[in-house]
């Protein structure tokens, strides 16, 4: 039975669906109980035009396949999505909306999206956006799908921008405290430097420079530090394979203004995105973590090892009500991944 037919039937019988691509990120958000709807067989690249810097692929296409195809043309995804294993699909990547180390400088998963075809909760196949960079016809429903975890529609195919692989890349390391590290990256980010990643852990700040060879060389001379770390570091960071992440404690993701001060929460900390994404492993009270994040102008997600904790920061009442109405507008019977983000969506 086609995906569309399955959704139409689920809509008619009001059967909740648990949408799965490669099942690599099911730990994220709340578990969904429902009939399984798998996009894994709906795969293949539909259109790839290296000269146009765009690709359109079916949602079940494995992410690693897409990365390989791009690499053959010396191109890549600017937002460096994590895979969390080898099963990740491109649909799941966008539905979860995760972005890797380059995010603050090269944009997010959502920023790369140009258009998509979805099936909404009524079983209607809809196409939004397109394969062109500039398009302001109609509401931007395709970017709305990014980070919606399939709760507004099942992504069937998606069009996105790709970028050339930078000609040169190097990683510098500096010894620094957490707050020195953030202060330095904040100050460097105000200068026209080819920084594409910055992370701190355990007294060491790593900064990645990428771009034209001459620009990378000049920046290296300006910043000092030691040329170190292989490119593997950024991959292990992105995939959460570093020792820091190997823990049974709750792993919290704090999304904060880059320059936010260090939070006073007892925790092991790894800082990414130059300060805009901070990972904490801690047994601290969720309420305390969320309050501290909110006070700093951001929000906190319980990313892994969550037990009895609301995964995402609860929304203010009027905002939740609006998002419920939006959910209704796409999925009136509430059959698409109900509760994955919030119980009410």
């Amino acid at each position, binding site marked *: 039975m086609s995906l569309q037919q399955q959704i139409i039937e689920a809509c008619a019988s009001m059967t909740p669906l648990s949408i799965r691509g490669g099942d690599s990120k099911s730990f994220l958000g709340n578990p969904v109980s429902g009939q399984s709807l798998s996009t894994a067989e709906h795969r293949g690249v539909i259109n790839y*035009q*290296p*000269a*146009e810097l*765009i690709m359109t692929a079916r949602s079940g296409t494995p992410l690693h396949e897409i990365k390989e195809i791009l690499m053959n043309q010396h191109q890549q995804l600017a937002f460096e999505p994590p895979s969390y294993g080898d099963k990740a699909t491109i649909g799941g990547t966008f539905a979860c*909306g995760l972005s890797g180390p380059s995010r*603050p400088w090269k*944009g*997010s998963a*959502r*920023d790369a999206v140009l258009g998509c075809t979805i099936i909404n909760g009524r079983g209607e196949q*809809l196409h939004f956006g*397109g*394969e*062109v*960079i*500039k*398009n*302001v*016809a*109609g*509401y*931007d*429903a395709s970017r*709305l799908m*990014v*980070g919606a975890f399939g709760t507004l529609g099942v992504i069937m195919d998606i069009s996105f921008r790709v*970028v*050339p692989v930078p*000609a040169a890349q190097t990683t510098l390391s500096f010894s620094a405290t957490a707050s020195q590290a953030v202060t330095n990256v*904040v100050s460097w*980010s105000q*200068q*026209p430097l080819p920084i594409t990643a910055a992370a701190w852990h355990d007294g060491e700040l790593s900064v990645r420079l990428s*771009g*034209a060879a001459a*620009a990378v*060389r*000049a920046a290296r001379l300006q910043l000092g530090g030691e040329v170190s770390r292989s490119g593997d570091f950024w991959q292990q960071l992105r995939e959460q394979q570093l020792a820091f992440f190997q823990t049974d404690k709750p792993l919290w993701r704090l*999304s904060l*203004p*880059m*320059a936010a001060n260090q939070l006073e929460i007892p925790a092991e900390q790894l800082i990414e995105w130059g300060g*805009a994404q901070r990972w904490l492993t801690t047994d601290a009270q969720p309420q305390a973590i969320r309050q501290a994040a909110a006070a700093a*102008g*951001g*929000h906190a*997600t319980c990313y892994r090892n969550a037990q009895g904790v609301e995964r995402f*920061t609860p*929304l203010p009442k*009027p*905002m*939740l009500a*609006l*998002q419920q*109405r*939006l959910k*209704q*507008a*796409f999925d009136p019977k509430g059959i698409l991944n109900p509760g994955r983000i919030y119980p009410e969506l």
Partner: protein
Amino acid sequence: MKSADPQFLSGLKSILGDGSLVEEREELRAYECDGLSAHRTIPMLVALPETTAQVQQILKLCYSHRVPVVARGAGTGLSGGAQPLEDGLLLSLARFNRILAIDPDNRSATVQPGVRNLAISEAAKPHGLYYAPDPSSQIACTIGGNVAENSGGVHCLKYGLTVHNVRKLRVICIDGEELIIGSDALDAPGYDLLALMNGSEGLLGIIVEVTVGLLPIPPTAKVIMAAFSDAEDAGEAVKGIIASGIIPAGLEMMDNLAIRAAEDFVHVGYPTDAAAILLCELDGTDEEISHDIGRIEQILLQRRCTSTRISSNDEERMQLWAGRKSAFPAVGRLAPDYYCMDGTIPRHRLPEVLRRVGELSRQYQLAIANVFHAGDGNLHPLILYDANKGDQLQRAEELGSRILQLCVEVGGTITGEHGVGSEKIDEMCVQFKALELQQFHAIKAAFDEHGLLNPGKAVPELHRCAELGAMHVHNGELPFPELERF
């Protein structure tokens, strides 16, 4: 023009201070259109609030009286998005003109919606930062309008559209409720409503505060101007540059008519005998630029360019841009009226689309000057006509519609950056199917169940498409009978 319900009027007067409400017909006339001057309506009333609390009260009042509301920034939009309604309130945000904060550490600026686009970059300049999206009207257009239209500009190939550069919005809903959308961090929990708000053309909420991201000012920028004796070669050169892996800060193209008009207007030394020119801007460090310029020159030569000129200093660079930036008024001197189109196409279809636009121009016997954001496939054909001569206006509108249909046919869109507004409402029926339009209406209803915010714009009613659809299919050559369009 309709007169307001007395109760509604007295309610408004109790919210707004003296001089903040426009009621007189002659004064209302100043607001009858935006940059799409062919569509004019005198609004019932114009309100000029100064505080968020006033906006909230006004919207509550409109909500309870079911009075439609059209928001307006500087009124520079080109698609009639701020065209008033005769039974509606025009809500001008012109007095929301303060820059609230520049935060260099977080590379952001928080401003009121009536702040001009260029004013943000000017305020950020002492910190070595700027706001990247630069619509050509940037000296006049407001950031609130930019968000509403998801404005682009010359530099969006490299730095993105408005949607890529806005972090947070403070929005007042039609019932007066305030929402914070986005955050001071790089993302926010829940659905990405920032994506929806950018380009929503005032249909979902009233923006009262905008936080945008800022970028470091590039140390150097240079422009290469390349001339071609065949416009299709110029199109091929655009393909070649993008395919090479270089992302220019701007990549613009002008055809012969546009070149001659611009040269005649600003005298910057454009080659008036060229069939087309490309303007390619590179920014970054000196090292990067000299490396990329060498590669680009090679590509241009391979695509049979006849001459190149590279700006040797900032003054010359600005001069080379001056012609492009004044292309619209320059073309405006060639004919009493012109009609500016805004389709986008996949870049590789550029040579073919150029040829077919030329054929349409001959078929409708109206000259077209072509100005493109070639790097991102965004076309601005300017159709020249004289509204006082016979059926020229009608022919111009029909020709424009045919060009937009051509854009959709080759896989593009009816609007790249100007928005749908009232202008392209019919072409929306060409681009979207009924189910998609229904989904748009459902989104709108989630924000504004009674349809009071900018009704009739951006998304057409299905019955309108049904009527037009029949016309497109069976009598494609017939002029539109939609009198309200003129």
